[in-house]
């Protein structure tokens, strides 16, 4: 049978992957561990249906938590006119008209979405444009209203005045009036509640706290609420008018939870624009880290945005020269103001390096501040969560589809330029939640049962334990085995039984609309005998296994490339639609801490600029990549030895 015709059968198989068995000794669920022996008395016999009694997540829920709308001041300044309502409508699958006047719709609806507008002057410019009666009492705002509505040149002048006013600390008082902020916040969270449709499309209340400390060092955090408007309204979001110190944000989060009884978590923005500050191994004030600091950070910052439109920050090729896939959608020119980056800064910006530093800090202090799971988001400022290569709507309205967007400057600070083509059509988060509800999704985020993708919706399972066998990869029910015999992504393994190494059950199924799978890799970080973190990448499952073999060093030949640049197409004649494996760490030392995460690579498919070239009939420069190996990154599983 040709590979092209294997998909239906494999899709059917994958449905089985997610099913549960009831004949295990115990099942670990969200609610705890159920012992089969103890529950036997309640049943005359176990059900015929393998799905009866299933109580674990059976499919990933797709969404993201970093989307801006016209309620963000930079978005409205850039011409965005879609507010949160339009963003939610688009996310749930409706067709909308973009700020540049183009109709747009997602290929498939999202399952959930968190609009996270900047808390600084959130919504006020949208209110100015709309002519909020209270704001129109202020002559400057009344003037700006006229300018925005006059359009084009005058609107841009209003934007520039707003930027200048903010940078000089001369924002009209009406805009920083707490009463206005309270009113806007209540409307903002009410919109999230209005669009929250459990079971179909969940919305999470969120905002972005936007610290650009030190002249453009991106220390942004997205704050995600488990709660509805009834709780969220009780405290206003933190702004950088109050503080640019992330440690103060943690205090704010603590106060929120104490006051409301609700729950929040913070997700650091991808760190590639922080010029070495996102994962600095010192406090914000430059003091040595303490155990309390490490515990506090890991309590509130349980996830990290590893990929988004402004680059992917899993690992930099300079830090892992042997990682052939590290060179992927890298943004390493500088910080948000493109202040040039120096080589030493990279150590404190990328996920893998931070995870490694976390192990080192844990050894010294007894707590790991960088024990985070991985998520992906767009950070689009268009109100459009569009991370599909063939449906990419850019960062700002200026990078919405056009024949010129690839070569225009996406960012230009006094000649330090990032070109439009460097923007990435990334990313989304797959969440293994027990149901599609705000609370269940937040709980899954909190327990790090998440994975990031650069856009495609491949399904990825990743479990760690000490007892997985090859049979688990053949049973067609690996999820049941996974939850029964191990912990899912984001979990912890402790104290290896004598003579046993960690085993990992990892499975991936291609996105039905995207490319086949090239390979699954497991990336391990650990502490050597000197207490220094090391890393190694293992190829554990790969497509075309009949033709591709590992060499003596464990390397695998490239999968090939079927991309037809002139037509913006590819064929799934290479790679495999699904991959599954049980892998045991061959280099395991039970006395040292380690982490493991899976990286799933697709075969090459056309990058967004290739679709542009075909659609507009243009030629794009040779410096622009024409194909991309989309990928997924799971949250890690940590191993901690006895005594730690």
């Amino acid at each position, binding site marked *: 049978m040709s590979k092209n015709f294997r998909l239906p059968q494999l899709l059917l198989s994958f449905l089985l992957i997610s099913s549960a068995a009831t004949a295990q000794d115990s099942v670990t669920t969200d609610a705890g561990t159920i012992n089969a022996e103890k529950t036997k008395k309640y049943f005359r016999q176990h059900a015929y249906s393998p799905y009866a009694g299933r109580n674990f997540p059976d499919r990933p829920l797709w969404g993201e938590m970093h989307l801006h709308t016209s309620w963000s001041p*930079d978005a409205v*300044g*850039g*011409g965005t006119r879609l507010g949160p309502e339009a963003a939610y409508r688009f996310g749930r699958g409706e067709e909308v008209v973009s700020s540049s006047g183009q109709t747009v719709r997602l290929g498939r609806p999202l399952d959930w979405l968190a609009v996270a507008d900047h808390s600084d002057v959130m919504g006020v410019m949208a209110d100015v444009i709309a002519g909020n009666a209270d704001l129109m009492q202020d*002559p400057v705002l009344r*003037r700006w209203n*006229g*300018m925005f509505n*006059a359009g084009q*040149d*005058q609107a*841009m*002048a209003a*934007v*520039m*005045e707003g*930027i*200048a006013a*903010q*940078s*000089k600390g001369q924002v009209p008082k009406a805009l920083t009036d707490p009463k206005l902020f309270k009113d806007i916040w209540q409307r903002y969270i009410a919109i999230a509640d209005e669009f929250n449709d459990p079971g179909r499309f969940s919305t999470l209340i969120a905002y972005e706290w936007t610290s*650009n400390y030190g*002249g*453009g060092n991106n220390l942004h955090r997205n704050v995600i609420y488990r709660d509805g408007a009834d709780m969220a309204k009780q405290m206003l979001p933190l702004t950088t008018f109050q503080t640019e110190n992330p440690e103060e944000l943690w205090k704010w989060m603590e106060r929120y939870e104490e006051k409301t009884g609700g729950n929040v978590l913070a997700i650091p923005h991808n760190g590639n624009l922080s010029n070495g500050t996102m994962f600095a191994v010192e406090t914000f004030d430059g003091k040595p880290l303490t155990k309390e600091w490490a515990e506090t950070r890991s309590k509130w910052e349980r996830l990290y945005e590893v990929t988004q439109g402004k680059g992917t920050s899993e690992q930099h*090729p*300079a830090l892992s020269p042997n990682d052939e896939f590290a*060179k992927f959608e*890298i*943004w*390493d*020119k500088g910080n*948000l*103001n493109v202040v*040039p*980056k*120096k*080589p030493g*800064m*990279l150590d404190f910006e990328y996920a893998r390096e931070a995870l490694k530093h976390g192990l080192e800090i844990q050894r010294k202090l007894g707590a790991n501040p960088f024990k985070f799971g991985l998520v992906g988001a767009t950070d689009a400022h268009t109100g459009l969560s569009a991370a599909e290569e063939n449906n990419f709507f850019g960062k*700002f309205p*200026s990078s919405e589809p056009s024949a010129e967007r690839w070569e*225009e*400057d996406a*960012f*230009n*600070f*006094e*000649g330090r*330029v*990032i*070109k439009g083509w*460097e923007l990435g059509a990334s990313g989304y988060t797959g969440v293994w939640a027990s149901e599609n509800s705000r609370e269940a999704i937040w709980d899954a985020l909190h327990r790090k049962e998440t994975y990031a993708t650069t856009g495609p919706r491949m399904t990825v399972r990743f479990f760690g334990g000490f007892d997985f066998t090859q049979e688990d990869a053949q049973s067609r029910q690996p999820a049941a085995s996974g939850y029964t015999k191990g912990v899912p992504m984001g979990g912890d393994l402790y104290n290896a039984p004598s003579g046993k190494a960690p085993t990992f059950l990892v499975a991936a199924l291609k996105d039905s609309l995207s490319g086949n799978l090239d390979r699954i890799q497991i990336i391990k970080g650990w502490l050597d005998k000197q207490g220094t973190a090391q890393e190694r990448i293992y190829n554990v499952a790969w497509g075309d296994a009949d033709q591709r073999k590992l060499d003596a060093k464990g390397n695998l030949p490239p999968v090939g490339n079927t991309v037809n640049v002139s037509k913006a197409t590819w064929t799934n004649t290479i790679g495999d639609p699904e991959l599954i494996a049980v892998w045991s760490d061959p280099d395991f030392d039970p006395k040292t801490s380690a982490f493991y995460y899976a990286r799933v690579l697709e075969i090459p498919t056309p990058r967004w600029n290739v679709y542009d070239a075909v659609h507009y009939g243009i030629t794009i420069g*040779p*410096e622009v*990549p024409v194909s991309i190996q989309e990928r997924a990154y799971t949250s890690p599983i940590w191993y901690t030895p006895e005594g730690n």
Partner: protein
Amino acid sequence: MWRIVIIGIVLKLGVELAAESAACPICIGFPSRTDADVLLEGHCVMLGRPDPADPFKYAPGAVLKGAYDGSNIDLLVDSTTSRILQIHPQTHVLLVQSIPKGPWQSLGWLNGALEAVVQRVLAAGPSWNGPDAMKQRIEFFLTLVGHQDSRIRELAYLELGRAPYPMVRQLGRVVPREAIEPMLQERRYYEWRGLAILLLAQSDSEVDRQYIRESFQATERFAVVTHLAAWAAAAMEVNADSTLDQIEEKYFGQEDRTPEELNAIFSALSMHGSREDFVLRDRIVVCYERLLERLPELAPQVAADMHAWKRNELSDVLAQVLDQRQAAMDRAGIIQVQRYLRSVKLAVSTGRPHD
């Protein structure tokens, strides 16, 4: 003297927002220094490529200016530049060290055209001295203002932005329309528009002239400060009389105009008043008197113009301002006004022209 003042005014058109530009995510900040400045002021200019032993660091290459001091080039070879250098093996990155043993700065990768321009700037720059330095420099970059390479085009545009206003008026006749169109139309060049507006003002097209009139009116109606000086100056090019009427009515006749607006209007008036061929200087002197009533802080600038123009009319007004506001004025401003007053006094007493 007048030349220095005008250069300052024209520069102000572009750089009035430069202080905020670093925080602007949606447009290109207007740089206060051009790459030509960096090259000509640099201690060492050198080509570089990734070090084969460490492809994320630069290895020194051919020295174009000065001498390489052997210091560490503490710059990351970013991924995009690395990719471009791989595609173009003969391409280099331009590295500049401003002072000996100082930090290095990258001016980006050089294609053939840009490398040629760099070589020409380094060769010609040292001769841009003396009274004709500005003219020589402008003439050099004038040939590049329509270049197809955007970096060369932008560099040339920034250099032309330093021309004194009389020269800008001449440039308006020769700068190709396509070189200024993006500056007027594209949002990202918003901060760069000042020069483009002044160049557009030289157009004979009625469409352009109507656009200028409408833009000035809109700027006035919405009390916009950004580019107000340029729009006012351009509107005076289109029709000086009626524009001065509007200025008198709308800016001097309305109490709620801000000091920033009045400053911008002063810039426009000063630009035209300083033209040797401007026939309405008398009206501008009248405007200055009204300006001083509204914004006496402008006394030093007004005095400078009046001194340069050898006009006596505002000596009483400026003496009164000096008398009433001396405590609030800085030393340079006081000297400027006093110099004008002495000059007028001398001219009146001797019957000779101003010094």
